[in-house]
Every structure is written in structure tokens, then in C-alpha cells.
């Protein structure tokens, strides 16, 4: 089984080993942006942290190493992901309550101080031509918003009164629609960071598709330096 050494994007002295599985997402730049955003905006250790869409557990483990929370909870729709998160937590001496859950379905009666949501999405037609979802289903809808909007709408029921939801918005989804939903559900929605990235070269051949999706309002990108630039923005949402 493949193993990687993950270096915290917030502090290079924090690094740890993770085992990967071909059936789960490898840690992505989105996970790193999320970790960095949470570390920069969390001032004291909280009680309960939920790593939602945990994959192999990278976000939760890294945040626990940063002492962001005392207790780690994690879930994913994939049983393989749950198995890998449990394994990686054990190897890193971190206790975790990890379960299979379709978003919040199996977290009834739980309340969290921080929900670190690593569930995002890209517009379906873009997802289907990319290599990003090999062996992993992508069901985030034509504009990539289905799953993240579901998280945003439900999350306030699982947050303590002073709880905070952190979530990424990828510009290969309908960012405005996601943000409008967040602003309806939460009193305060702040962008913590905006992170540009080059669209991989192999996607350049789909420029017509990208432009038609942008025309429909499903995605946003810029063309600079002879390349296509997309963004992953990290937001916090709270009701206090």
C-alpha cells in the first residue's frame, strides 16, 4: 500500500505518514488550503472537531497535530475511506470516532465546535473528462453544487451555538450559488483565503467545454500567463 509523508501547510515542522488507498482520494490541494485556513483562523483549542468527507483522514489528523481540537470525529460515504482514516489515526496515535455517513446522516445528536468540510465538487461535465475522480463517484450535479449546498444547509443543526463551519468553494462549480446559500443559512460568512491554481495541461484540450460551462455560469476561470487559472476559496460560516 502506498505511503506518503504529509507536511502541514501551516507549519513545516509538523509532518506525518499516511497510507493511501486507490479507492479513496489522495490528499489534494483543497485539503491543504482547508487546513491552512482553519489553522490561521482558530485561536484556541476547541472540544469537538468533525472532519466531514475525511478521505484518508488528512485534514482531521493534521488539525489534531496542530491542537485545534481535543476530540476528533470523522466520516465519509466510502467504507474504504473510513477504514483508512481509522488506520491512519491509529498510526499517528490520534483517537477518532469515525463512521460511514452520507453527509450528516449518522451524526444525529452530535454537536461540533468546528466542522471541517472537505466535500466539494466540480461541474459534472468537467468532472467526467478529468482524471480527478478515477475509481471515485462524482455526483455533485451539473454545476458542482449539489453536495456542498447540502452540507451548508444541514450543518447549522450540527454546530454548537459558537460553532464554525469551514468549507471550500472551487471555481469549477457555481461559486455564486454556493455562497448565496451560505449567506442565507448563516449570519456571518467570511472568505478566509483565495488560492489560485493552474488547471492541469491535460485539461487544456477541453477549452471549448470549459468556455461553454463558464458561459452557462456553472464555472469560473481566468486566462493569464498563457494558462487557465482556477481558484479554491476557503470560507468560514457562523451564527454568532
Amino acid at each position, binding site marked *: 500500500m502506498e505511503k506518503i509523508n504529509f507536511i502541514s501547510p501551516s507549519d513545516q515542522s509538523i509532518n506525518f505518514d499516511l497510507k493511501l488507498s486507490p479507492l479513496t482520494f489522495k490528499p489534494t*490541494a483543497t485539503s491543504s488550503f482547508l487546513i491552512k485556513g482553519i489553522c490561521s483562523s482558530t485561536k484556541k483549542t476547541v472540544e469537538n472537531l468533525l472532519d466531514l468527507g475525511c478521505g484518508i483522514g488528512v485534514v482531521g489528523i493534521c488539525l489534531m497535530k496542530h491542537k485545534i481540537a481535543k476530540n476528533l470525529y470523522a466520516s465519509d460515504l466510502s467504507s474504504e475511506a473510513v477504514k483508512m482514516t481509522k488506520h491512519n489515526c491509529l498510526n499517528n496515535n490520534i483517537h477518532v470516532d469515525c463512521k460511514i455517513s452520507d453527509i450528516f446522516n449518522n451524526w444525529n445528536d452530535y454537536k461540533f465546535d468546528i466542522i471541517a468540510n472537505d466535500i466539494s465538487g466540480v461541474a459534472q461535465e468537467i468532472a467526467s473528462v478529468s482524471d480527478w475522480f478515477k475509481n471515485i463517484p462524482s455526483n455533485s450535479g451539473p454545476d458542482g453544487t449539489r453536495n456542498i449546498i447540502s452540507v451548508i444547509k444541514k450543518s447549522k443543526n450540527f454546530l454548537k451555538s459558537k460553532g464554525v463551519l469551514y468549507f471550500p468553494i472551487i471555481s469549477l462549480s457555481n461559486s455564486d450559488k454556493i455562497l448565496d446559500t451560505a449567506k442565507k443559512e448563516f449570519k456571518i460568512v467570511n472568505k478566509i483565503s483565495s*488560492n*489560485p*491554481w*493552474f488547471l492541469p495541461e491535460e485539461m487544456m484540450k477541453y477549452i471549448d467545454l470549459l468556455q461553454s460551462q463558464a458561459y452557462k455560469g456553472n464555472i469560473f476561470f481566468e486566462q*493569464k*500567463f*498563457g*494558462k487557465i*487559472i482556477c481558484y479554491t476559496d476557503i470560507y468560514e460560516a457562523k451564527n454568532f
Partner: protein
Amino acid sequence: MINYDNLVEIVEEALEVKPGVISKGKKSDWVEKWDSLGHLAILTKLDLQLDGQCAEITELSEAYSIDQIAKILRQKKLMIE
């Protein structure tokens, strides 16, 4: 218009390393941060500093060292010799 020292400062800021690390420190202290994301962070800051004059310069996306960037900027008359 910027000079070479300005460029080094922009790179240090973009890569989130301490001021002076690139000019005085070891390359190993910062070179790992110059990945694809670091490269784009450098170009974005540079473009901002030069009032959007870099966005159309396609060669910058293939310039992976300070000297290469400096050479391109000098050719485009955006950097003092």
C-alpha cells in the same frame, strides 16, 4: 518598473519565507516551496505589483527561477537593468 531586489522580495512574499532567505539563505530553505502553487503565487503578486502588465506574458508560466523571470521582465521593459 521593478528592480532585481524588488523581484526577490516579491518571490519571498509569495513563497511565504522570511525576508532575506533567498538572497542570504540556503536554496534548500525555500526551493521546495516553489511548486506549481508557489509559482502561480509569484506570478500573481508580480502581476499585481506591475499593474496587470504580466498577465499576457505567456513565457512567465515556464520561468522557474528568479533569473529566468528577471530576464523576461527586462526583455519586456518591466525591470530596471
